[in-house]
């Protein structure tokens, strides 16, 4: 698929407060670049991300949604990310089943020390969304200008 240069993707990243958000901070303070297309939403725990959040992001015009949390075993609340992992697995599988390109969703575990991982993950993800193009299958038409 040819990459559309005009296309500016909107990407929503749900980051847990304790690890991934701190990871993003570290990426920032270490001057590691990641695209400005990524909008971070801080959540207390990856487990807080309700499937509806993901769908709402797509509804309002996101082209890709990524969720980041503590590594399994490192959750601030001990087990939150284990539950989140099952939920997201099922949700992504359902989206795939309904014909939404499966590259538009991703989960990555990023610790507070992994600024580099955060930045590379985001770069990869944005790249992927560029290659997938605009999200047309999940989105409210009224939100398109």
């Amino acid at each position, binding site marked *: 698929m040819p990459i559309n240069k005009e296309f500016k993707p909107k990407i929503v990243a749900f980051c847990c407060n304790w690890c991934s958000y701190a990871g993003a901070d570290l990426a920032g303070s270490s001057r590691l670049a990641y695209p400005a297309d990524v909008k971070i939403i801080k959540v207390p725990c990856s487990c807080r991300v309700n499937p509806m959040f993901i769908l709402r992001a797509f509804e*309002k015009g996101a082209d890709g949604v990524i969720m980041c949390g503590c590594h399994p075993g490192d959750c601030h609340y001990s087990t939150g990310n284990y539950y989140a992992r099952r939920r997201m697995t099922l949700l992504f599988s359902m989206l795939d089943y309904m014909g939404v390109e499966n590259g538009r969703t991703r989960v990555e575990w990023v610790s507070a020390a992994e600024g580099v991982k955060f930045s590379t993950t985001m770069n990869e993800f944005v790249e992927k969304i560029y290659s997938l193009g605009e999200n047309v299958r999940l989105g409210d038409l009224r*939100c398109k200008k």
Partner: protein
Amino acid sequence: MKKIAKSNLSALFAKINETKDLYVPVKNGEQVNFAAYSEEAEVDLTALKTVKSPKDAFFPQSENLYTCFNEQGKISITPEELQDKDFVVFGMKACDIKGIEVLDKVFLSEPVDSFYAARRQHGIIVGLACDKPEESCFCTVFGINPAEPTADVAVYDDEDFLYWNALTEKGNALTETLCDLLEDADNTAVENKKKEITAIAEKLPYANLSLEGWNGDALTEKFDSPIWEELYKPCLACGTCTFSCPTCQCYDIKDYNTGNGIKRYRCWDSCMYSDFTMMAHGNNRTSQMQRFRQRFMHKLVYFPANNDGMYSCVGCGRCVDKCPQNLNIVKVIKAFEKGGKA
């Protein structure tokens, strides 16, 4: 009286579609609903009842009213354009057409709803006589004749031909534009068809349903009846009956923030829903019994009280067919006739 060979119908539809929007019953899966005509659409004129009534050609399930922009605290409003292109709804049945008359009472009474009025003005109804009335039909109870759709054009399906009878000025004008495709015909086939339909209509299981006692004056007596308590229990509080009904007109008005302007839209609502009458300081219909009662009281008592005895039910039988738990207006009427369990 005109006629057209059924094999030539797609030409007729294409011709209408050239200058006007055309809505026809279209089959999707096992269900038939009115939808915009296209060459690929599987037009199905044999289905007696569409799942949703065709009222949404005039009163769409959801429609935008205006967009509100708020720029640095300055609000501006851009109303939606009114319908200004003629459109044809092809294949409405007598009951659905009567349903539109019921909606007229609501939307065309003062203050006139201009969105609806514009659609009414530009809409041309081609009614199709009911080929094979079904067991759930009881339109005759409301004085509707399934053999005589009171539309702009009445159409009859007989073997290989559709017979075409323009009844109004709008109908004549439409017929005019289609004169190349329609040929003259005599009345015999249609007269026979009408007799056939009427004969069946008399044999329908609900043909003798009695509406005695249901009128605008019966308000308190019916409202306070203990029978409602017996009837409502299986009700799921879903909106199947409301949304398939040709006369239900309740709507909700909502805002949707698109990120670039707030769309004010209205959409069908159901009195069966728990939040229907919810407001900041309370809700006057808190139980499902009250909501259930509201629906039937509205159709059989409140509406006649405000509209010279006209019922807001046309006996199409969609709720009879579709209620998930098999509750319906016929059962309500019968239960009252019987006087409940006691």
